[in-house]
């Protein structure tokens, strides 16, 4: 293990009594509790953390926060592994194992670097231009490109970690805990308002964690942070969330927060939660997201050791880590001076400050001067040297207008560079909320303009500068937001602040080149995607002038960092190239998530059995006892078939199908949708939603009905029974139960509110055993001796109430098999009792329980359709050959007019027909295409598809139904079903395969 050579004594907020061991690229290192992976690596002198995406250039840490483009790390091993994690946000924990990405075979020797040597051959759009032709080769190219340009590895198996979700409401959600956010939380919290404060880092305070040169009410700034956090912690209605990225801002103040919880040292617990996704509905949102520092764009500005000035200050003051042994600073504003003073105070040697401004002045500049630090005013870095770590930089003087370099070149030795190109307000969430931005010429920043949700932007993200101003804005916004959400209270007094004063910056987007030919080269704008200033120029020259085109052509801003450090500079450079300004270019759309998020967090606990509810019928245990296999039908688990020992599925289904027609079969039909319909206008209502006539259906009688959508397409079917005057019992398909109820409500509430009718779902209230077959009447009369079950007294399509096996039951004489059949409905809790009684009494008839598969074969033998199988929302009753069910005399029903449309009445629509295979034992796969003239290979003209296909033991052959173009006229013809390795010859028939006369219905 290496020592923490760059850790400074007694500086920063890490806990030195808690050393942590971690492994980076196979080597062990030590850090402290309170470190990020980034600060711990720097403490060990490791700047080189990754390779760039396209050219495989060595890259180091650029930032200390969410904006990090370079330090993307593969965290963990096995299925827990997580790619593309920013080392700057990765909270260090003991035993952490991490790897660098995008390098092979290792970080210091990467073969992909050859891309850099030929990089003039790999300009923007190179992949598109070169590899897109010929199209058939793209798959081959893609394999190699993706291999070379990998962004980490996805785990191969299921994520073993646990994630949770939390739903919350609050008065005020405050994003960001810098001076503005903290003071807003304090002001709002004091009123008793329900406040949630989120902070993406592991410690509250934002810039106050590292700006040690300020005091608030006489306290060092970070002491004020600690006091404020302590005060907030004592407020019962305030929730403080650190290590929590607010990553999505959606409609109506709905925000998602992703909290990392695997850093609390919650060891030992087997229910350790890795991340928690918060879904928050906030009455008001305060965005205090601060600003992100801009890099300067000069030649070879991407070498390891070059980082942002404020990030350098953060590593120094927050983590107690020195960036190097000889620091050069390069700036266009006062920020680097502030960093220089901090470095000097901690005895870190400073090479010089290179300042783009010709006459820097002010208190910070004076202080630096008095420390004896060399300043090069009106100068710029023109190139750097050093492969795995910066070694030196060359500087030159700038012309007065900043577009040229003059004078002689001077080389300065250094091992790190802190740069500052000014600041970009972090407007991502504001923009996600629907807010529009404006370009502020003076600040050279995009700032919030039009607000569309109940929010306020304060502090840095609103362009506010200076600690005192941010505190003031926070106190004001916090108190106002609390009052706006019906809390009473006043803003606390503004504390007394001592802070350094900043002077103006000099914005030069692109540092000129010293090269004689004037060519801009290796001026990196987007570090993660290796987009340079010359790529942007090339895109502009090739006509990609819109920012959205620029983005897609150069891949600018398309990395996992979404261009947080690069977008604005790219826009400005594009603007300069096109002779206009950034606001005229516009900006790309900001989309959630703000930083990459683990999919597991969005799934949460909704996995496996918790993914979707599983519904079982009350007779479930009976089926299990009979050895049933189950299948999913929507959310239901239905008995599929009941195999005997050593029986295959086909053998079991054949046996069940035979038994149902030879003696007695029994089916659990409880899942059918059931809707209780009551009211004096119930019959009139049914008459309007079904295609056939319902007004004359007598009480005690039942009728099959077909429902259409208003476009004439079949939507659902089922039998509805008139129980008593004004009281109907409707059945729907198993899958359609909920949507049919909604459909009825819709028509009643919105179209015919004058009808007096009420709907109640009773699907779960009734258990249903359906018995069928020639002996089922005998079986039922054994259990219901008081009932007259004769055809005369209890005809087909009627209902009786009576006592079955001691249970009051509704018995429907309806049939989905074409056999004599009774559907016995009993109150749910009596389901198992009824089932057991039927099974017991049925023994003497060899009663056979049958599952959904046999049910399908039985109904297909009779040509009965299943909505959703024979229909798909494009099928009319005429297409199904069900003209008989469409009333010609009714004035109106839903879908009536649509059935007269020219497209519906033409006779070459796809129509339902039967198909019989030439080889009687061959069963066509469902979904197969039907063709008239097969050819040796696709494409072929497809005229339809197979909707149902089974082996029918009662017909002793396979049977199938298909929707075939002009099918009715093709009956008797031969068609073909081409499969992958053969073609099946079929004859078109009608859809009645068994008992065409229907004599079995009465037993």
């Amino acid at each position, binding site marked *: 293990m290496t020592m923490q050579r760059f850790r400074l004594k007694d500086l920063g907020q890490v806990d030195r009594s808690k050393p942590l061991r971690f492994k980076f690229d196979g080597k062990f290192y030590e850090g402290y509790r309170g470190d990020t992976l980034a600060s711990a690596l720097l403490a060990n002198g490791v700047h080189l953390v990754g390779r760039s995406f396209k050219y495989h250039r060595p890259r180091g840490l650029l930032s200390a926060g969410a904006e990090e483009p370079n330090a993307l790390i593969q965290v963990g091993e096995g299925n827990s592994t997580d790619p593309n994690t920013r080392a700057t946000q990765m909270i260090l924990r003991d035993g952490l194992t991490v790897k660098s990405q995008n390098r092979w075979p290792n970080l210091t020797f990467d073969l992909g670097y050859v891309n850099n040597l030929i990089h003039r051959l790999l300009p923007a759009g190179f992949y598109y231009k070169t590899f897109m032709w010929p199209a058939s080769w793209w798959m081959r190219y893609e394999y190699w490109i993706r291999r070379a340009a990998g962004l980490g590895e996805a785990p191969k198996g299921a994520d073993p970690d646990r994630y949770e979700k939390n739903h919350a409401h609050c008065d005020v959600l405050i994003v960001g805990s810098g001076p503005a956010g903290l003071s807003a939380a304090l002001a709002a919290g004091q009123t008793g308002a329900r406040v949630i404060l989120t902070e993406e880092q592991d410690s509250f305070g934002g810039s106050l964690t590292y700006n040690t040169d300020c005091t608030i009410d006489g306290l060092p700034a970070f002491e004020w942070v600690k006091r404020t956090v302590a005060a907030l912690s004592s407020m019962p209605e305030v929730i403080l969330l650190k290590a929590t990225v607010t990553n999505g801002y959606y*409609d109506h103040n*709905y925000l998602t927060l992703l909290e990392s919880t695997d850093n609390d040292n919650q060891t030992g617990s087997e229910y350790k939660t890795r991340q928690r996704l918060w879904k928050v509905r906030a009455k008001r949102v305060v965005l205090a997201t601060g600003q992100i520092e801009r890099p300067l764009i000069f030649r070879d500005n991407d070498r390891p050791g070059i980082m942002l000035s404020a990030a350098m200050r953060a590593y120094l003051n927050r983590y107690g880590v020195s960036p190097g042994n000889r620091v050069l600073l390069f700036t266009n504003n006062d920020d680097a001076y502030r960093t220089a003073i901090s470095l000097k105070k901690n005895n870190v040697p400073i090479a010089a400050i290179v300042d783009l401004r010709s006459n820097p002045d002010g208190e910070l500049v004076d202080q630096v001067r008095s420390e004896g630090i060399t300043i090069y005013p009106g100068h710029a870095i023109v190139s750097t040297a050093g492969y795995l770590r910066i070694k030196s930089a060359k500087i030159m003087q700038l012309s007065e207008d900043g577009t040229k370099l003059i004078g002689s070149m001077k080389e300065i030795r250094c091992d790190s560079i802190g740069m500052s190109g000014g600041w970009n307000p972090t407007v991502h969430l504001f923009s996600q909320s629907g807010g529009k931005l404006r370009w502020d010429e003076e600040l050279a920043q995009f700032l919030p303009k039009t607000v569309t949700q109940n929010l306020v932007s304060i502090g840095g993200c609103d362009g506010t500068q200076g600690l005192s101003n941010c505190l003031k804005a926070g106190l004001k916004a916090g108190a106002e937001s609390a009052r706006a959400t019906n809390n009473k209270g006043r803003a606390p007094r503004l504390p007394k602040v001592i802070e350094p004063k900043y002077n103006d910056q000099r914005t030069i987007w692109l540092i000129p080149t010293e090269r004689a030919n004037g060519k801009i080269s290796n001026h990196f704008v987007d570090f993660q995607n290796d987009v340079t200033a010359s790529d942007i120029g090339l895109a502009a020259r090739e006509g990609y002038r819109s920012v959205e085109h620029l983005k897609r052509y150069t891949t600018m801003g398309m990395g996992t960092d979404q261009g947080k450090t690069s977008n604005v500079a790219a826009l400005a450079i594009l603007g300069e190239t096109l002779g206009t300004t950034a606001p005229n270019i516009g900006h790309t759309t900001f989309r959630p998530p703000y930083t990459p998020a683990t999919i597991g967090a969005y799934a949460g606990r909704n996995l496996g059995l918790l993914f979707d509810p599983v519904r079982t019928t009350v007779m479930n245990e009976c089926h299990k006892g009979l050895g049933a296999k189950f299948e999913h039908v929507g959310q239901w688990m239905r008995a599929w078939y009941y195999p005997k020992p050593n029986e295959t599925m086909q053998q079991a289904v054949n046996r069940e199908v035979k038994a149902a027609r030879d003696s007695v079969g029994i089916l659990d039909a409880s899942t059918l949708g059931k809707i209780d319909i009551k009211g004096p206008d119930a019959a009139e209502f049914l008459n309007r939603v079904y295609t056939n006539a319902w007004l004359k259906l007598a009480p005690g009688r039942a009728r099959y009905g077909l429902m259409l959508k208003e476009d004439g397409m079949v939507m659902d079917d089922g039998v509805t029974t008139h129980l008593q005057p004004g009281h109907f019992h409707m059945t729907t398909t198993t899958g359609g139960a909920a949507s049919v109820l*909604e459909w009825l*409500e819709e028509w009643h*509430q*919105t179209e015919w509110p004058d009808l007096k009718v009420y709907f109640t779902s009773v699907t779960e209230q009734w258990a249903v055993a359906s018995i069928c077959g020639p002996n089922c009447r005998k079986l039922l009369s054994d259990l219901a001796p008081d009932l007259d079950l004769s055809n005369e007294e209890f005809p087909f399509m009627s209902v009786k109430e009576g006592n079955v096996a001691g249970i009051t039951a509704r018995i429907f004489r309806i049939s989905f098999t074409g056999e004599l059949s009774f559907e016995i409905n009993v109150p749910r809790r009596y389901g198992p009792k009824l089932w057991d009684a039927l099974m017991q009494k049925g023994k003497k008839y060899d009663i056979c329980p049958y599952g959904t598969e046999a049910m399908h074969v039985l109904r297909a033998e009779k040509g009965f359709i299943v909505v959703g199988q024979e229909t798909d929302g494009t099928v009319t009753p005429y297409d199904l050959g069900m003209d008989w069910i469409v009333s010609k005399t009714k004035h109106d029903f839903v879908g009536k*007019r649509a059935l007269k449309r020219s497209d519906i009445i033409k006779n070459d629509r796809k129509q339902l027909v039967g198909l019989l295979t030439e080889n009687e034992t061959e069963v066509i796969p469902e979904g197969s295409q039907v063709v008239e003239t097969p050819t040796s290979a696709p494409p072929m003209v497809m005229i339809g598809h197979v909707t149902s296909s089974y082996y029918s033991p009662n017909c002793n052959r396979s049977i199938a139904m298909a929707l075939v173009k002009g099918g009715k006229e093709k009956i008797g013809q031969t068609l073909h079903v081409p499969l992958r390795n053969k073609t099946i010859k079929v004859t078109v028939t009608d859809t009645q395969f068994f008992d065409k006369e229907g004599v079995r219905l009465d037993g």
Partner: protein
Amino acid sequence: MLYIKCPWCGYRDDAEFHYGGEAHIKRPFDADSLSDEEFSEYLFQKSNTKGLTLERWVHTSGCRRWFNVLRNTVTNEIIEVYPSNQLPSSQAGKEYYKNNWRRKSAAESLTTRQVEK
């Protein structure tokens, strides 16, 4: 995710609701007298506006009641919630209703004629 105020239950997340498309599409009473083209104005043609729109929602996972909403499709701001079978009462809603192309469609004028009879 929208936050919708059900007239009966109060504010709920939109996951509890189903969207019901454009509101105030009157169903032609004697549709047989419409040509296919005229009928398609009722059946298929929907106002797909950028900005204000009148639409139907149903509180499926709550009270099962249908109601109407005046919403801005750009900002998703909900300006008005009002019962089914009523017209909007806000000024913006009234204007949108009055100026909608559907008021002049053949399908709707047929409905109006029927009501007048």
